[in-house]
């Protein structure tokens, strides 16, 4: 069976693409063989996993693909159940578009802020263009770093209704454990009690992704 391919994209930096990719992949790896494809020249996914130790390795392999993304993904599709592509924070190079062209689903992490919303308008257009050649692509917005006590966070659903793509019901809260796990080269699944709430929300997200 061919792997399901999930891209994590947003042309704006700092929205949590790598954090989402790493934790999503860690959760998916509990369900089937998973590979992270680091398509971002900054190489953050590789750096993250590289910080783990031999005693506590990151549970998913990371490869960096510098070119021929489509070819490499089609080759790897046969060996894995899930491929997670961490896209670069730009639309200018065409890499994010290439990733979406070969993906089943693309997730767009958006922070609860006006600037992030505005930046995503352009991405929504790019996704529409990609859908011309990949009609099976499903795109979902994911609110990242949600703060329940913030009025801005609570107002997001009204603004997201302006987009032509759905937002996932799941969202990731703003939690220190996401940043701390990166520093240790781990996913939130390996953070013990500190990571429990984060694991719960990642699990909820994965269930939604796999059933949507």
């Amino acid at each position: 069976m061919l792997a399901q391919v999930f891209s994590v994209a947003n042309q704006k930096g700092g929205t949590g693409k790598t954090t989402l990719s790493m934790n999503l992949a860690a959760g998916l790896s509990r369900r089937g063989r998973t590979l992270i494809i680091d398509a971002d020249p900054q190489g953050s996914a590789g750096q993250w996993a590289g910080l783990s130790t031999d005693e506590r390795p990151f549970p998913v392999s990371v490869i960096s693909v510098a070119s021929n993304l489509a070819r490499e993904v089609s080759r790897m599709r046969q060996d894995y159940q899930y491929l997670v592509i961490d896209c670069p924070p730009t639309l200018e190079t065409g890499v994010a578009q290439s990733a979406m062209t070969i993906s089943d689903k693309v997730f767009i992490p958006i922070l609860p802020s006006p600037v992030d919303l505005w930046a995503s308008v352009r991405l929504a257009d790019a996704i529409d263009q990609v859908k011309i050649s990949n009609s099976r692509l499903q795109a979902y917005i994911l609110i990242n770093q949600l703060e329940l006590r913030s009025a801005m966070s609570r107002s997001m659903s009204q603004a997201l209704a302006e987009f032509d793509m759905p937002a996932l019901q799941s969202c990731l809260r703003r939690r220190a454990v996401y940043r701390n796990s990166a520093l240790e080269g781990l996913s939130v699944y390996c953070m013990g009690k500190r990571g429990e709430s984060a694991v719960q929300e990642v699990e909820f997200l994965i269930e939604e992704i796999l059933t949507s």
Partner: protein
Amino acid sequence: MTKELGSKLANSVRQAKAKQPQKNTTDAQQVAEAPLSKAEPELPLPPLPVRRVWPD
């Protein structure tokens, strides 16, 4: 308060959408329909297109 802020946010998204350049449908169709084999010959593979970064 939340509702008012939500309306403001929604309005700002509408404005951002309105400011987007018009989509060039013809260009998109041309790209989608272009015969890849003739117009874009395969480039030779670079020596290391894939690099396993974790585990080493």
